[in-house]
């Protein structure tokens, strides 16, 4: 069986990219298994293998989440009066399933995950998954706003500063990059509240009500990422602008806009996206701090409450579900690379 190649010419030699036509013997000798014409097959394999890796990661997360929650202390102590008898204490532990050996508890936890039953929240008395989903959209909205600010701002300033090195945009980008990495986002959040809400009275200090309330938490959450993305965009663009194909694009007489956005930017995008995918985690994890500053009713705030009340099922649910979502997001970004760069897609 001949392995699939680019194509077969009239004399039944095999057309290999970058080599031209070679004989069947030579093709076998190369040991290559490269199918360009049927590039869908490797792509499916690629997706499947990425999803398989994701499943293993998620299993690992479940173990870590379970262990961390157990390590944080005995939940039953918080749910019963301090002067409860030993019997009452044992009752509570049995009711919560905490008397069983840890491997059994983990088994129950895993079974719950598989059936979508994450247990009842100790504090809310409702299924913890339900509590999670009630709050999660708020966090997601804020994260989306922040991601949009970080990505669009970072790319725009980064590209401008690369194209007009030494100009105004370049100086602004240096300043943003410096401040973004030197000033923590919670400080920016508090400073914004002091300035825009208390002093100027333009924006509400906290809570979630209407578009205006998204502005400050959005910026605070985007703060660090935007700085990092600006820097990455700038350096990546500078590299690309110095290549021969950009020179040729100019020699072809293309307008500068086409040269920059079509030819340069898309090539600069892969490292930017890599960084952005790493930052996605930050938009969720950063919400723990930002949501508490701005009293945003999302899972960041919920996490802190759940941890303080040792609400195991809820903590487990929040951490496990958000982690899983992020793992899947990373898979999505990997697939996006293949969409952007044909060399990844075809090899």
């Amino acid at each position, binding site marked *: 069986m001949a392995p699939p190649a680019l194509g077969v010419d009239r004399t039944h030699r095999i057309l290999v*990219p970058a080599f031209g036509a070679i004989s069947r013997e030579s093709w076998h000798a190369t040991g290559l298994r490269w199918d360009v014409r049927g590039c869908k097959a490797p792509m499916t394999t690629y997706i499947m293998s990425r999803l398989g890796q994701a499943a293993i990661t998620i299993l690992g997360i479940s173990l870590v989440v379970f262990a961390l929650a157990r390590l944080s202390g005995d939940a039953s102590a918080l749910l019963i009066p301090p002067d409860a008898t030993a019997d009452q204490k044992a009752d509570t532990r049995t009711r919560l399933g905490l008397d069983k050996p840890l491997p059994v508890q983990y088994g129950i936890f895993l079974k719950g995950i598989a059936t979508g039953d994450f247990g009842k929240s100790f504090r809310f008395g409702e299924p913890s998954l339900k509590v999670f989903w009630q709050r999660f959209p708020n966090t997601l909205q804020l994260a989306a706003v922040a991601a949009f600010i970080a990505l669009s701002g970072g790319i725009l300033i980064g590209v401008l500063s690369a194209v007009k090195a030494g100009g105004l945009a370049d100086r602004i980008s240096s300043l943003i990059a410096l401040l973004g990495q030197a000033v923590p986002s919670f400080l920016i959040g508090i400073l914004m509240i002091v300035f825009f809400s208390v002093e100027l009275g333009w924006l509400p200090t906290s809570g979630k009500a209407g578009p205006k309330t998204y502005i400050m938490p959005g910026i605070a959450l985007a703060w660090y990422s935007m700085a990092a993305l600006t820097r990455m965009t700038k350096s990546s663009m500078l590299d690309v602008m110095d290549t*021969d*194909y950009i020179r040729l694009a100019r*020699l072809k007489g*293309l307008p500068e806009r086409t040269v920059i956005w079509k030819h340069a930017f898309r*090539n600069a995008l892969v490292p930017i996206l890599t960084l952005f995918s790493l930052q996605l985690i930050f938009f969720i994890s950063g919400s723990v701090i930002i949501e508490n500053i701005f009293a945003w009713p999302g899972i960041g705030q919920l996490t802190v409450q759940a941890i303080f009340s040792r609400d195991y099922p809820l903590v487990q649910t929040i951490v496990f579900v958000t982690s899983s979502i992020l793992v899947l997001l990373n898979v999505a970004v990997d697939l996006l690379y293949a969409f952007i760069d044909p060399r990844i897609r*075809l090899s």
Partner: protein
Amino acid sequence: MSRAPSTQSRHLLEVKDLRTHFFTRNGVAKAVDGVSFSLDRGQTLGLVGESGSGKTVTLMSIVRLIPKPAGRIVSGEVLLEGRDLLKLSDRDMREVRGAEISVVTQDPMTSLNPLYTIGNQMEEPLRYHQHIRSHSELRSHVLDALKKVGIPVPERRMKSYPHQLSGGQRQRIVTAMAIECQPSLLIADEPTTALDVTVQIQILRLLREVQKEMNLGMIVVTHDLAVVARVCDVVAVMYAGRIVEKAPIVEMFEKPSHPYTQALMKAVEGERDATGRLYTIEGQPPDVRRLSPGCPFAPRCPKVMDICRGEYPPVASLSSQHTVSCWAAMKENGIEHIGLAPGVAS
């Protein structure tokens, strides 16, 4: 395609006293310092010289793509069919690039954008310069150009990405891209340097064919005299930002008159010295930031005289088309210092 009807006397391209300097922290680099030449349709000019002699900067000045802000064309004229390109607006200049003047770049491996198909990249000049919008029309133009440069199965190649092609094929595609808008001037910047020797000959033959068929003016920049011998009608040798000798190809090889040209020829012929070592030109090319008033080749020149160190030689005509800037060559040919025509009009 043709612009103003070109009169017989008017050259396709006329470069007059072009000076391109780079203003750096360490002083002014006179990369191109008073280059003049002219070129007619159907003619091929070879621009030869070592790295740093100003060949590529000369080309980039013609298409006005000198890296800013350090580089600047400080004086001169670049007349394309009588129109001074240096006076055009950026927008008008962009319409000249890729349409009237096309460039075949040096390294085909890196000259094509890896993210777009060949077809997509080849359609661009047609879209921008000829304002073709219809897909089928674009496609047929691209296919024509690909056929012209001898790409097999062009329909499939259009859908290929650059990384799926060999260096020779990519150079053919860059060539196809250069000629698809029917330019009048084709510039090839070291078109074969990055290619295998066998492929080099194919590409040179292709350039020659295309040039003859479309009656283009062509400038080939190279450091390889073998390339010059294959494709050029006229050769100009550059040294330290100036043309030091210019002659029709046969005359240049038969009677090289500038000591630098002579040295280049010796090096190419593989002449060996008494100890059997290959011939090399002693010393280094000069630093174009620190040029003395004299001839820049003087420190390396075997025929150096006193006057060479103090004064740059004028352009002397050895025959109707053979010019040289060298005191020693003038002396050998019995040309007096005075009474020389200024400028290197051919």
